[in-house]
């Protein structure tokens, strides 16, 4: 019964979405306020129905209703409650449900909190949001219905794939989708602006919080996925340039560019045409990512051709929305008025440079990801584009970006003083040079490029600190006065400095672990000892441990400093899941400052030894710490009063708006 109610609620949601997608638009054409305000009510109603439908599916999972095919295929009554809940989106149908839930959630947020938006803009934007929602709801109902029943209900479910039975599943997909789908708001606002044929700096002010929020979630989602892969895969890799990862990196790069160009648009009324295009591109890349991952085209072009119902449907959505948006853009963008002029050396100029390299990096990832597919489809020739290609092409594009990053905030709007900015960054450059020299002196036989990487990272971090120092005049005026200035700084300035600092932190972690990480691969018998980077590892033996729905074969290892004193134990395991007859590797981690010891084991060999992979990962935690700092920077900016949609002080403003309508 619950499944049927969920199915029915989804159909109702589709019906509401169709109303939401048509009536407000008609309203904007005929200047009918009643029709335009329908957008708000329908967006809220649509969210209620989608949420009800999602809740129904979740209820089927929690109660282990195996008469529902989707639950039977992906759940098991022995799983703990957390995994029974998260397995809702651990499969194709359920993850699409999560997709539309978040889409409807964002629509409802705009409807509920966008009271100060011009009525027409709001109506158009929510209508566009409804078109996207309707397309994906239709997709679910026609090709990926999670509510299908099985005639003879099985007694037990097939279980969730063991690799997904991890707290990472509770965290990674929702945040990734909050980011992906959050860009739909920018997209809808862009289309709404194009439909009206008018756009101004206020548009950027309205859209920026949404872009920022989506960007924050995407940052966290990508970092969370990277951390999950790091500890789950058994060898401590954190980024693989895998197509599915690239699919999430592309919207992030485009979104980061959008975040910066929207600043220029808001402050200087410039780059409008470009910002609109980026808003369209960021969400288009999210759609492309969804297509790549959902259609199976990545596995092989042929797999796609064999079972293509879903793939073709998403491809159609892709073509209609991206094609439609870009056509509308080509038609309407020339009508948009150009705004403020600026010299090449200026804050605007720096942000344009940022956009140039971010979009080029994004294009590189795009081409690299799709080139093998395109080449195979066109010529039948198979090539591979893997990590070595991306490392070789992506890094050169990011270096100018990192070099220019500290300059940007120090340049003035309209016309900047490059020499002045350079003088203020001398300290950062000196620190970077010292760090690079120290890295060079300390590393024995490490990669030649590593000290440069360290130098860049320090330069970026120091640059962010100098930005704040310059604004607060700390060290130049009495501390109390500087603190008062610091408190008076707009939160968005703090946010930018935090985010830039975070980039430096992440970069430092990547360089350090890539250049100076070390490993020992060995086959150990109980009592054996190996050494790695000031640590000594002794294998004490194997024992078994039972879990909720698995059995662990655990290795116990003592860790000592090379000097001799015991600092702890590591217990990596091989985890057997009888329900699927599969095993996963559970690595053991020991944190030392921001570095980690990483240990994983394989199945025992007939000779009685256990294969062991022991890694020292220097500064590895900085990679994700940097992402957290970026997230915090975003949160600071978002809390800036001026950015808050519907902030209390806007009461006067909305009175002015009503006068304008």
């Amino acid at each position, binding site marked *: 019964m619950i499944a049927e109610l969920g199915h029915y609620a989804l159909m109702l949601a589709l019906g509401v979405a169709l109303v939401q997608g048509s009536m407000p638009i008609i309203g904007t054409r005929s200047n009918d306020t009643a029709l335009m305000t329908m957008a708000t009510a329908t967006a809220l109603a649509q969210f209620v129905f989608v949420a009800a439908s999602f809740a129904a599916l979740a209820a089927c999972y929690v109660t282990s209703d195996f008469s529902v095919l989707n639950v039977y295929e992906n759940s098991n009554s022995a799983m703990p409650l957390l995994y029974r809940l998260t397995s809702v989106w651990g499969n194709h149908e359920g993850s699409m449900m999560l997709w539309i839930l978040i889409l409807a959630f964002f629509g409802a947020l705009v409807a509920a909190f966008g009271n100060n938006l011009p009525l027409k803009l709001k109506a158009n934007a929510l209508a566009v949001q409804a078109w996207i929602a309707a397309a994906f709801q239709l997709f679910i109902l026609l090709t990926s219905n999670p509510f299908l029943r099985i005639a003879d209900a099985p007694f037990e479910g097939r279980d969730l794939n063991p690799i997904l039975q991890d707290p990472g599943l509770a965290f990674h997909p929702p945040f990734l989708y909050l980011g992906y789908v959050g860009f739909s708001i920018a997209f809808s606002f862009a289309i709404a602006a194009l439909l009206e044929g008018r756009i101004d700096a206020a548009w950027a002010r309205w859209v920026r919080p949404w872009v920022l929020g989506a960007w924050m979630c995407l940052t966290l989602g990508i970092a969370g996925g990277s951390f999950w892969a790091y500890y789950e*895969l058994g060898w401590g890799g954190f980024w693989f340039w895998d197509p599915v990862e690239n699919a999430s990196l592309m919207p992030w790069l485009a979104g980061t560019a959008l975040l910066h160009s929207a600043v220029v648009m808001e402050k200087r009324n410039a780059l409008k045409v470009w910002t609109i295009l980026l808003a369209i591109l960021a969400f288009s890349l999210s759609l492309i990512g969804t297509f790549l991952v959902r259609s199976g085209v990545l596995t092989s072009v042929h797999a796609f051709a064999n079972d293509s119902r879903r793939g073709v449907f998403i491809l159609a959505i892709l073509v209609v929305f991206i094609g439609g948006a870009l056509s509308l853009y080509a038609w309407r963008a020339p009508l948009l008025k150009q705004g403020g002029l600026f010299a090449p050396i200026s804050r605007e100029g720096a942000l344009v440079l940022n956009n140039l390299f971010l979009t080029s990096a994004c294009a590189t990832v795009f081409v690299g990801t799709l080139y093998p597919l395109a080449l195979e489809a066109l010529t039948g020739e198979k090539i591979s584009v893997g990590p070595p290609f991306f490392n070789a092409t992506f890094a050169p594009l990011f270096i100018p970006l990192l070099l220019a990053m500290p300059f940007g905030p120090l340049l003035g709007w309209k016309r900047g003083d490059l020499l002045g900015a350079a003088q203020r960054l001398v300290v950062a450059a000196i620190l970077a040079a010292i760090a690079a020299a120290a890295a060079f002196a300390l590393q024995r036989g490490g990669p030649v490029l590593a000290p440069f990487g360290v130098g860049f990272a320090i330069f970026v971090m120091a640059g962010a600190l100098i930005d704040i120092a310059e604004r607060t005049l700390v060290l130049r005026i009495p501390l109390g006065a500087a603190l008062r200035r610091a408190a008076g700084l707009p939160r968005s300035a703090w946010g930018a400095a935090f985010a830039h600092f975070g980039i430096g932190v992440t970069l430092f972690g990547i360089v350090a672990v890539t250049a100076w990480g070390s490993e020992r691969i060995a086959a150990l018998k109980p009592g054996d000892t190996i050494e790695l980077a000031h640590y000594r590892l002794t294998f004490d033996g194997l024992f078994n441990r039972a879990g909720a729905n698995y059995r662990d074969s655990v290795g116990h290892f003592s860790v000592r400093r090379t000097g001799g004193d015991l600092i702890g134990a590591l217990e990596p395991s091989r985890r057997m899941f009888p329900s699927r007859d599969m095993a996963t590797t559970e690595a053991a981690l020991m944190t030392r400052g921001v570095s980690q010891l990483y240990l994983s084991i394989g199945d025992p060999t007939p000779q009685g030894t256990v294969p062991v992979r022991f890694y020292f990962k220097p500064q590895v935690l900085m990679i994700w710490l940097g992402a957290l700092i970026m997230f915090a920077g975003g949160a600071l900016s978002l809390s800036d009063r001026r950015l808050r949609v519907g902030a209390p002080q806007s009461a006067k403003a909305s009175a002015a708006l009503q006068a304008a309508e």
Partner: protein
Amino acid sequence: MKRTLSAQQSKALLAGLLLTLAFSCLAAFPLRAVESSEMLADPALEARARTISKELRCLVCQNQSIDDSEAPLAHDLRVIVRERVKAGDSDTQVVDFLVARYGEFVLLKPRLSWHTLALWGAPPATVLLGAAVLVFISRRRRNAPAQETANLTSAEEARLAELLHDQS
């Protein structure tokens, strides 16, 4: 029979969680990536073999180097690489040997040729094209200064000023 998730599946799952599982690939892979038994005694040769392995694709995997892969084929390829390195081949000779056997598909970093020109050309081309467009636009706009203000009603101007007045 005991089945082990091959690492490339774990990767696809983890990174996206979303790919429909290719269960056909869930064959018995009791091996793990680079085993101690495979490794060469000479650390310098072993280091070279590792570097070469990172550039070679495990042919049955999705976007994974033979250095990371648990598939039996990757094991075989690692052994071949080590045999060639031990026999005194240079890095290029080892790679050429494998390309001759398995085609360019085995290379994770495709060689520059006619059919990969667009791939390698894309990054510099985007930057150059973008820069050219920027120069073009800024020249054109300097020659013909644009109208500074959009056509707003006076009430909208007031609203805009309200929104922007507390600029930093």
